[in-house]
């Protein structure tokens, strides 16, 4: 995973009008995004799940509708946290929009590589060079940033390859 050019979008309105020492910073958001992908790639399921608010909603990359994050996490655990699954993301630029002192939006394009285990026992691999992510973060009462909404997609149709020997 790489992090290079970083842009920041701040809103010159009320969000920055008052000094809030606990206000979300763009670098803090980028660090959480990087942590998100590190935990995903290293399959640290417990810590990964803690990144989501209990009421978060998600558009998974291949889903036809949004769903509670809790449901998506069960599916990710089954398909992507097993010993033969693998996930990697190469991120270049993470845009951060600071909407309020406790609310920010991260959006970025990335190259997603995934090997997953399907419910029918097959293993499939996909390269998604033009993946796109929107993640909305909110600071909770404990001061921790949590994802309250996520939208993952691909700009181009995704080609999936069944792996031999599965």
């Amino acid at each position, binding site marked *: 995973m790489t992090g290079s050019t970083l842009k920041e*979008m*701040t*809103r010159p309105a009320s969000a920055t009008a008052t000094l809030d020492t606990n206000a979300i910073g763009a670098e803090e958001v980028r660090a959480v995004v990087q942590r998100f992908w590190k935990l995903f790639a290293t399959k640290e399921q417990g810590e990964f799940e803690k990144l989501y608010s209990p009421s978060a909603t998600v*558009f998974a990359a291949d889903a036809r509708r949004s769903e509670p994050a809790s449901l998506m996490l069960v599916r990710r655990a089954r398909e992507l946290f097993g010993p033969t699954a693998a996930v990697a993301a190469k991120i270049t630029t993470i*845009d951060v929009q600071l909407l*309020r002192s406790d*609310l920010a*939006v991260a959006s970025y394009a990335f190259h997603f590589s995934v090997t997953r285990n399907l419910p029918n026992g097959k293993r499939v691999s996909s390269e998604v060079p033009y993946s*796109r992510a929107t993640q909305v973060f909110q600071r909770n009462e404990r001061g921790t940033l949590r994802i309250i909404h996520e939208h993952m997609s691909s700009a181009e149709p995704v080609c999936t390859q069944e792996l031999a020997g599965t």
Partner: protein
Amino acid sequence: MNAQISAEDVRAEVQRFWNILSGKSSENLESLYSATALVFTGRAKRSESGPLAAVRRSRQMSGPDASASSELDSIEVQLAAPDVAIATYTYRFSSTRTGKTGGREQRTTLSGRSTQIFQRDDKGAWKIVHEHLSSAVPPKLETVARTKPEGITKPEWGKQ
């Protein structure tokens, strides 16, 4: 000025967006966006400025033979803060316009997915500050007859 947005306010703003995009309203699409808005349009490989994307969409839809129609499913609204709301929904959208080769092209998105984040600006107006449009399956692209038969701009969604 009501400081707290309601779910119905958000749904009305979403409908306003699609009414403009479908040619049912002559309002300016650009005016719906915050000056610093970022958007992922359906096929873009990276995000871009919301107002810029709006100008491009308006130009594409303003041709003499351009037409479009949309249909939205239920709009889920998360009220993230008194002045911020997240709308998520699925949609179908069909647009017909002259393509780069001069022929008429109809593009139909049957499994569209939308996230739109609204925030109240300093003047009390609700603006889109972030938008992510995508499709669960690739849009269908067809070449259509130049003379538009009656009713072609309104696909029968349920039969496709």
